[in-house]
C-alpha cells in the first residue's frame, strides 16, 4: 500500500524553476516561456515526442476494461437466464446490483485492498460490479419486449422453454442487451482511469503522475474518450452482424 504514498502530487512541486504543476524534471530543456515550461493548453511538439509513454498505459487500460466488461456480461447474463426461470429473483438482484453501483469506485478499491492487495484484481472487481446493473436491467427489459406472437409461434413449433429462450427470446432481445453493454462499456472506460488507485495502472497512471500538466491531461482525456468511442462503434457493428434481420435500423 506504500506505492501510493510515493507519488507526491505534481501540483505541490512549485519550489523549483518549473512552472506550478510541472514536475521539475520537465523543465531541464525548456525555458519558462516555452509551451511546456509555461504549461500551455496543448503542446503539440511535446505530445508528438512523448507519445510512446502512453502506449503501455493505453493497452493496460484496454485490458482492464475488457476483463471487467466481459466478466460483467457473463455474470449479468447468467443472472438474466436464472431470473427468467425464477421470476422472484429479479427484485433482489436489481436491489443488490443497485447497492453495488452506489459505492463510489475510490471507496470500493480501498475497501478491497486489505483483501486482494494492489493489482489488477482490486481494479477489476468494482468495475465488473458496476456493469451488472445496467446489463441486467436492459436484458430483462429486452426479454419483456419480445412480441408474444413470436413466443407463441415458437411454442406452436414444439419448442421447450429452454429452446424458446435461446432461439427466440434472447435473439430478439439482442438490441436491448447490446444497448446495455454499450452503456456499460463506455462508462467502464471512463471509470477505469481511477484503476491506478488500486495499483492496476491504465491511463490514470500517466494522468496522475503529471496531473498539473495540461497537455498530459488532454492527451489522457482524448485517449480515454477515443477508446470509449471506438469500443462503442465495435459493439454497434457486432449488433448489426448478429441481428441481420434488423437491417440498417440500429444506428
Amino acid at each position, binding site marked *: *500500500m506504500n506505492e501510493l504514498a510515493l507519488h507526491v502530487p505534481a501540483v505541490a512541486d512549485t519550489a523549483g524553476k518549473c512552472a506550478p*504543476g510541472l514536475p521539475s524534471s520537465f523543465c531541464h530543456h525548456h525555458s519558462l516561456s516555452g509551451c511546456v515550461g509555461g504549461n500551455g493548453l496543448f503542446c503539440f511538439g511535446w505530445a508528438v515526442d512523448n507519445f510512446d509513454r502512453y502506449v503501455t498505459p493505453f493497452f493496460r487500460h484496454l485490458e482492464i476494461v475488457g476483463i471487467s466488461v466481459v466478466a460483467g456480461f457473463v455474470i449479468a447474463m447468467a443472472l438474466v437466464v436464472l431470473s427468467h426461470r425464477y421470476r422472484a429473483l429479479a427484485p433482489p438482484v436489481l436491489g443488490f446490483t443497485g447497492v453495488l453501483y452506489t459505492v463510489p469506485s475510490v471507496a*470500493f478499491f480501498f475497501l478491497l485492498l*486489505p483483501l486482494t492487495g494492489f493489482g489488477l484484481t482490486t481494479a477489476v472487481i468494482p468495475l465488473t460490479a458496476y456493469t451488472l446493473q445496467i446489463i441486467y436491467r436492459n436484458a430483462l427489459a429486452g426479454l419483456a419486449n419480445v412480441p408474444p406472437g413470436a413466443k407463441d409461434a415458437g411454442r406452436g413449433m414444439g419448442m421447450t422453454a429452454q429452446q424458446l429462450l435461446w432461439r427466440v427470446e434472447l435473439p430478439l432481445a439482442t438490441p436491448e442487451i447490446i444497448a446495455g453493454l454499450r452503456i456499460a462499456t*463506455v462508462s467502464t*472506460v471512463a471509470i477505469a482511469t481511477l484503476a491506478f488507485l488500486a495499483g492496476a495502472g491504465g491511463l490514470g497512471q500517466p494522468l496522475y503522475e503529471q*496531473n498539473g500538466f495540461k497537455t498530459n491531461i488532454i492527451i489522457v482525456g482524448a485517449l480515454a474518450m477515443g477508446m470509449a*468511442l471506438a469500443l462503442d462503434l465495435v459493439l454497434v457493428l457486432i449488433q448489426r452482424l448478429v441481428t441481420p434481420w434488423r437491417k440498417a435500423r440500429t444506428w
Partner: protein
Amino acid sequence: MAESEDVVTVSLAFLHAFGGAFDFILHQREAATKGGVAVGGPGYIWTFARTQLEVSAVALGGSIAIALPAGLVLGHLGRGEFFAVGFGNAGRAVPEIAVVFLLAAVIGIGLGNVAIALGILGLPPILTNTFVAVRQVDRTAVEAAEGMGMTSAGVIARIELPLAAPTIMSGIRTAAINIFATATIASFVGLSTLGDLVTGENIYGTDGVVAGAIVIALLAMVIELVLAGVQRLVTPRGLTLQRSREAA
C-alpha cells in the same frame, strides 16, 4: 488443507483491517507519522466529510440550476434532441478525474473551482433525463392544458414538470452520486475531502484508509436513499395510480 488455511488468513486480515478501521472512525489516535498529531475519531472525520458534502451540494445545486431549466425548455419546444441526448451519452465517456485536473490547471484550485468541475459532471444526466421525461409526458394532458388557455410557462410548470418529476429525479440521483464520488478525488487538487484519508496511508495508516472508504460508501448510500425518498415524494399521486392500473 492449505486452502482452508488461506481462507482463515484472509478472514483474519479482513477482521483486522475492518476492526481497525472502525476503531479509527470511533476513537482518536496518534498519526502514523508520529509527532503527537492526533487523527481519527468522529469529529476529525466529520471535517473531511463536511467539506466533501459541501462541495458536492454546491456542485449539484449549480448543475440543477443550469440543466433543469434547459431540459424543460428544450423538451417543451421539442428542439435539440440530438444535443440533449447526445450530451448525456458523451458525458458518460468523460473521465471525471481528467476534468478535475484540467479545471484545476486552467482555473485553479479551491472549493469554488472544484465545485465548477464537479458541476460540469452533473449536467449531462440531468439535462438528458429532463429532456426525455418532458417528451414522454402524455400529449393529451398538454393539449388539454393548452385548450384551457394555459400559457407555455404554465404548461411547463404545472403539467410537464410534475409529470416528468420522477424521471428528472432519477437523473438528479445519478448526478448526485457521480458528483459525490468524484468529490473524493478532489483531495488531489488540494481540497480536504474524505479522499485525503484514503490516499493518506503514510499519515493515517491502513486503518484510516479503510475507515475513509467505509465512510465514503456509507455517505453515498445515505445520499441515494434520501434522494430516492425525494423521488417518491415528488411523484404525483395520479401517476402512481395510473401505473398500478397499467400493471394490473
